């Protein structure tokens, strides 16, 4: 059974600081997705990582995938308040439902 673990589950960070969220998974996969969820809202697609070594960046967020280590990271650079949200990773192992991590609740404070 595929297990997907995110850490940390809660993260409070100061504006301007850098931090990394980790997503580990237990089965071979070369496809992983990151989603963002604002409070009371649904999930919105952030990044689609489709191969080993894939790196995607948008604004202050950068995601990468290391399939050999079964690890994806979401790096936050110089955090701003607008990045406060819950971030989910989801692993794709074929035409079955994605397996989601429990989410990392990020709070950026002044």
């Amino acid at each position: 059974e595929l297990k997907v673990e995110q850490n940390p589950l809660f993260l409070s960070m100061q504006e301007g600081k850098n931090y990394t969220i980790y997503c580990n998974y237990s089965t071979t996969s070369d496809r992983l997705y990151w989603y963002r969820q604002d409070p009371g809202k649904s999930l919105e697609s952030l990044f689609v990582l489709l191969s080993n070594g894939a790196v995607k960046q948008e604004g202050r967020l950068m995601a990468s995938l290391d399939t050999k280590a079964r690890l994806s990271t979401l790096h936050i650079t110089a955090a701003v308040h607008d990045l406060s949200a819950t971030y989910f990773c989801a692993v794709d192992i074929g035409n079955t439902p994605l397996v989601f991590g429990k989410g990392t609740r990020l709070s950026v404070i002044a």
Partner: protein
Amino acid sequence: DVKVTQSSRYLVKRTGEKVFLECVQDMDHENMFWYRQDPGLGLRLIYFSYDVKMKEKGDIPEGYSVSREKKERFSLILESASTNQTSMYLCASSWDYRPYEQYFGPGTRLTVT
């Protein structure tokens, strides 16, 4: 743009009522999914469907059923609503070929009193 819509954003029902939650997608996706989301429990898969009239149980199907009569529409049915089904319900859809990225609807917050 992919669009997944859900019939209601907020719904309040009484215990014992039959509840229908509807989801429609406009991208001709084969796969559709229903999740519930509760604080501290993440996303939990209730049912999914790979094709019209097909359904598969997810991790927590008890107390729910689904219907998929048309490709674009996937309904979640609570046969007899109970207070422990108060939750946020999220619908998603995807193609049946890679990548299997799932696109989510806006969610329905259901309260059962």
